[in-house]
């Protein structure tokens, strides 16, 4: 599957409290969570984000709380892919489990700016900066995790195995 969109760019240690502040965690509605996504770090995100857009960040993206509401809010806002140097481990698990595509690729992070148009073949991990023409190869997932992704998330993969 190939995704393509405009890039929102963030620095290191983007925490789950800014991705979705706890004051909005009294709901599980995906649309409502998405309407507050990133608002404490980037007030314009919700206004600007379009279906397919891509987040590019530096180190330790998604640090802090275990709230699955964070990847849910990002996914429901229309974001098709998050690329970072590294992810906090609970966010990493949660993103895979709910089917939000994430990739670790420091080379891409180094060479992609806010507003660039980026495309990615998710199955191959090939990232293309359409604005500059540069290509990058993300770290492949271990086969065990790729299987969860291919099945459409953790619950679907458990059901498929039963």
């Amino acid at each position: 599957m190939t995704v393509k969109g405009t890039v929102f760019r963030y620095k290191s240690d983007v925490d789950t409290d800014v991705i979705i502040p706890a004051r909005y965690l009294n709901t599980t509605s995906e649309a409502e969570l998405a309407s507050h996504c990133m608002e404490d770090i980037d007030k314009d995100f919700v206004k600007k984000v379009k279906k397919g857009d891509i987040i590019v960040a530096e180190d330790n993206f998604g640090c802090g709380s275990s709230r699955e509401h964070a990847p849910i809010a990002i996914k429901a806002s229309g974001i098709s892919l998050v690329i970072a140097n590294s992810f906090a481990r609970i966010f990493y698990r949660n993103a895979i489990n709910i089917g939000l595509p994430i990739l670790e690729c420091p080379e891409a992070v180094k060479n992609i700016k806010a507003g660039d148009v980026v495309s990615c073949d998710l199955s191959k991990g090939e990232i293309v900066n359409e604005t500059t023409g540069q290509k990058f190869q993300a770290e492949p997932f271990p086969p065990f995790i790729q299987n969860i992704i291919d099945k459409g998330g953790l619950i679907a993969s458990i059901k498929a195995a039963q």
Partner: protein
Amino acid sequence: MGMTMSQKILAYHAGLPAVKAGQLIDAELDMVLGNDITSPVAVKEFEKAGFSCIRCPAKVSMVMDHFTPNKDIKAAEQVKTVRNFANKYGVDNFFDVGRMGIEHALLPEQGLVGAGDLVIGADSHTCTYGALGAFSTGVGSTDMAAGMMSGKCWFKVPSAIKFVLKNKPAKYICGKDVILHIIGMIGVDGALYKSMEFVGDGIQYLSIDDRFTICNMAIEAGAKNGIFPVDDVTREYLSGRFKREIRVFEADPDAEYERVIEVDMSKLKPTVAFPHLPENTRTPEEWGDVKIDQVVIGSCTNGHISDLRIAADILRGKHVAKGVRCIVIPATNTIWKQAMHEGLFDVFIDAGAVVSTPTCGPCLGGHMGILAAGERAVATTNRNFVGRMGHVDSEVYLASPYVAAASAIAGKIATPDEV
């Protein structure tokens, strides 16, 4: 190659003779935890998947602690969803107002987790139970749903950093200073994906509450888990409380550690994490004159009885500075009652503080002490991210109960020596 404490617990629960860092395993769980924020999402996933039963209801705990007593209608609806689910599937360890406490103080207190256990919880501070010699780690709601259904969870076996804690902590130094010092040294991703194993001759001086505080904040360094070896302090705490068999796992002499870091606790100074990351630690000479509006003494990090005793010792016979709101939150009902019987509430109230029912409340900006724009709080909690305790332009300074109580009196960040 030998195994670390954490690796041994994982190998045991995976039914394997040995595991190594990086290996992916499926392991049997002793406890699956959720709270009033994460359980509703897990319930939704569980029911959407059409799962018909919980594999072992006794190995599930649901603690309504974050927005309780319910702060608004939406929060009440979420708790109702979880309550109905617990009733339907026979989850007896459902803790609501009257039985509840902050999850990471409550589960150990109730003897629901103990040495050698493998625990997952849909709350990042689930790593707290490493204080008891358990492997315990935070996950999300989908992992919680899958764990309830199957009794199992997948793990990538972590590598580890060994922290050798040496000597007796200096005066006014407790577990909070130790862990803040460490996070300041290695950073908020300094232990990303790894275990933090705490050993050394100094651990004999650390109470079980100190160890809870230290393991609680392992996640603030990005760690998968924090863990202490089982010793007399652990056994004394678990005795008569933990109903299952204690399983002790010791690191092999040739266990591999990515780093070994020594911390001389006799040399530590009171440590405060300035906004907006727990790694922004400073010691008194770097504090400057930071005026404050609020002090919070509580949370899963520092809402234990020993934390309340420390705060009371500092506040006894003194008064909270004019214009400062000091909120004390015992972590569980049992701690609340104990503090009351010890006369600590008299000390707090005479000093001009207020005592709250157990709740996570202000720690995550939920309720019971939210900050306005421009306000500053010194808190014994665990995170000082942007907007964590309220307005996006408010600030949280993380500190020990010694420093928090002293700051309440001084009206600015202060050490006990200054008051």
